């Protein structure tokens, strides 16, 4: 099964289950943040978007202390695939599973729009349906999606091919003008060094049905399903 972690304040948790289960036919279920362990048949973990604990302190800061997160960490360290979107990305950064931090958007506004995303590294299990240079269209909706990392972390991300997605223009051009939130290097999504933990600000679960935002998000979720089922 695929575990969609439900924190108090999660919003896109049910949307993630809808995408995974109803649309992509995977066995996905909500797992309560207060559980001390993931289900024993867990093949992959999704940390969904939303406002866990209201995002009152910092986004994701309180959620990472939830009991189930200790087991998610163990799961990731054992190589299990973990995907965090939006608030889930923030939780993964706060809990140290991914480097860096997500900060207030450059213009201080919440932004809801469809972003163009340039595929860069395709080395991880999450990129099985992607090719370098491809442009995906997936919605973003966040107030704190400005990716920050210290120079050495950033260099390591680049060197190790951990940068999967960058914000770009319709034809793939990456520039300040195509950066919606001020993220360093237009970074929209990264993996950990091992490539089994993926965090991104865009919402793949909101791009899985043609009439509801297109189907580019399904490429990412299907990759996770394959990775989990192959494991």
């Amino acid at each position, binding site marked *: 099964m695929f575990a969609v972690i439900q924190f*108090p304040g999660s919003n896109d948790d049910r949307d993630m*289950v809808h995408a995974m289960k109803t649309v992509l036919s995977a066995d996905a279920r909500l797992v309560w943040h207060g559980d001390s362990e993931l289900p024993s048949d867990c093949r992959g973990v999704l940390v969904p978007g939303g*406002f866990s604990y*209201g995002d009152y302190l910092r986004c994701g800061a309180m959620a990472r202390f939830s009991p189930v997160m200790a087991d998610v960490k163990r799961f990731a360290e054992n190589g299990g695939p973990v995907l965090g979107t939006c608030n889930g990305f923030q939780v993964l950064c706060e809990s140290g599973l991914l480097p860096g931090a997500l900060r207030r958007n450059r213009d201080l506004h*919440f932004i809801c*729009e469809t972003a163009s995303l340039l595929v860069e590294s395709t080395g991880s299990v999450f990129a099985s349906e992607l090719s370098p240079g491809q442009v995906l269209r997936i919605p973003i*909706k966040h107030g704190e999606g400005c990716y920050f990392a210290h120079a050495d972390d950033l260099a390591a991300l680049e060197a190790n091919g951990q940068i999967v997605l960058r914000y770009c223009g319709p034809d793939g051009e990456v520039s300040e003008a195509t950066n919606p939130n001020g993220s360093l290097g237009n970074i929209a999504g990264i993996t950990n060094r091992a490539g089994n933990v993926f965090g991104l600000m865009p*919402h793949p*679960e909101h791009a899985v049905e043609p009439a509801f935002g297109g189907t580019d998000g399904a490429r990412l979720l299907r990759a996770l399903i394959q990775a989990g089922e192959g494991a």
Partner: protein
Amino acid sequence: MSEAVSLPGDPKVDEQLAREHDLTDEEWQNILEILGRTPTYPELGIFSVMWAEHCSYKSSKKHLKTLPTSAEHVLQGPGENAGAVAIGDGLAAIFKVESHNHPSFIEPVQGAATGVGGILRDIFTMGARPVASLDSIRFGPLEDPKHRHLLRGVVEGVGGYGNSVGVATVGGETQFHPCYAGNILVNAFNLGIVEADNIFLGTATGVGNPVIYAGSKTGRDGIHGASLLASAEFGDEADQMRPTVQVGDPFTENCLIEACLELMSTDHVVGIQDMGAAGLTCSAFEMASRAGTGIVMELDQVPQRAADMTPYEMLLSESQERMLMVARKGREAQVCEIFQRWGLDAMVVGRVTDDGRMKINWHGDTVVDIPVDPVSAAAPELDRPTQEPAALRERQKLDTSALPPEEDPEGALLALLDSPNLCSKAWVARQYDQLVQGNTLIGPGGDAALVRVKRDDGTPTRKALAISADCNPRWCWLDPFAGTQAAVAESARNVACTGARPLALTNCLNFGNPEKPEIMWEFAEAVRGLGEAAEALGTPVISGNVSLYNETKGSAIYPTPTIVMVGLLEDHTRHAVSQFREAGRVIVLLGETREELGGSEWLLFRTGREAGLPPRVDLDHERRLQGLLREGVAAGEIETAHDISDGGFAVALSECTFSSDGPGIGARVELRNGIRPDALLFGESTGRVIVATDSPDALLERAHAAGVPAARIGETGGDRVSITPTGGEAWVDIPVQELHAAWAAGLPRRLEAV
């Protein structure tokens, strides 16, 4: 006779104190009679909030009674927390719109946020999962830095709360007019979906059943907040009312929604109600009144946030994110456990009695003992005098023959597209989560929002609901009867443009001080127009809200009856959008353009005047037109349908060429030159829709059969918008890019200059 003791420290209750509580001398006498004694201080507080305009509807009741409220598909009309309509498959839509005008003027972020929070509670209190929000917001001119600040704040508040709670904001209205300079409007709408046989009501039934309090603790915030703020004009004392502002807590609301919905999927509770304006008092009275029961409450059991609160403060506090419910006997533990799992307080605070009295105890003393009915059901009802405004006839005068013809139609079009009322509202909507819950087929930017219906277990259906909020306050000021009819007609037409059938409406009647006969006349006329239009279109009024005293220093807002129409689309895989989707489609104009320039944006732009009679509303035509749209979309003949409203034909056609990301597909049209060209281009005749079709013959035939005027006027394609009179030189021929740039920059360019 009832007994209730005064507490040491309570002020002496007399006629003078009653006046300070905004009770009239007559109401004071009434209280003495009802109780047979002098009220205690908390009792006086209760009467004052329950009988304030905001809770009692004393000025408006008489008129609201005349509205059509029932139909076969109406499951719940006005009187509950929100209205409900059946949408088939055993499902119901619950919806309502509510104002938060005064609080938002005092503190825009929190005022708007708590407005959203309040309307959400009205929806989920009935067992429905809130799925779509709209916000209808109105400000003074953007040249005024104060109103730029207010707009930024309100948008931050609406978004901050709605985004966090996890309900998509899919549409709304954003307007600017000097009449709102001293009194902005913030009307928040929400719609939820529920299994029709699982609708919960706010009733306190079952003698002996426990009364349970859940949610945030009660604090000292908002005492006399909504009730008093919304029941008096603004004067210079607005600043002193500041302490009544409350801070919203969307995280708690999010947990409250999940906990309440979980609870309502069990059979532990028999009645549930949120604590809105006037807090604990109002909800307890309403619940008992609806059930014909009484309640005894141990007030000291209520979770408290602040130290040393008095019963008076506890009863009148308007702390947010609180619910009151009546559970089945013996289920107390199960109920409280659900809330605790979501990190929320829940306490048994009382029980239902059979004596029809509200008894409130405080550390062993009874401090309130009032019969329920006279306070709620028998609250005062006034028959306020009405009088047509002296200046009305004057402002309705407009001699169009004396108006110089438009010399520069291209310049006028660009200026109108850039104007704050007609320009793109993407700056606003971009700050809202338009997608969460994954049902948004059409979000902000369409004629109506279109939202797929899912069952509560997440199973998607083929159904979708279309929602549109509309009001043209200028028209309502020129003629409140016709203006309100036009608002109902437009909202229904917008809904029909997606292909949906309008089902029912909710409304928020924003007016000035009802004690003035001229304002009361506007109100009465608007309600009359609302009722007639709702009747004619078969869309009953199932919920609503009245916001009076929208005046500052004697100057009232324009009458602003915000209408929100909800319609049903049986198969969302067939729906129309308001943009052109393909080049080479035939453009058809449905409806008739008359020489109507009264009250138009163009008239204001060219002459600075707001004058004349608003365009005629033909409800018969409207019904035929909307039926045609529905059938045409269902038959696959209509892929684009865009309502012609503010700014007239030229503006509407331009809007059809704007895609959600930028300039889209252009258009070439020819208009028959029968009436003055500026009226053809910019007149705002109602009942017109621009349609794009790949089967024009079938559509024209269908229109003919339906008795709807329809003319083939051009084709989509290219990257320009060109409008030409038959056989003449182009009036307008502008690149879509340029039109779009003007339209898109309207708000940002005015707001980004700090």
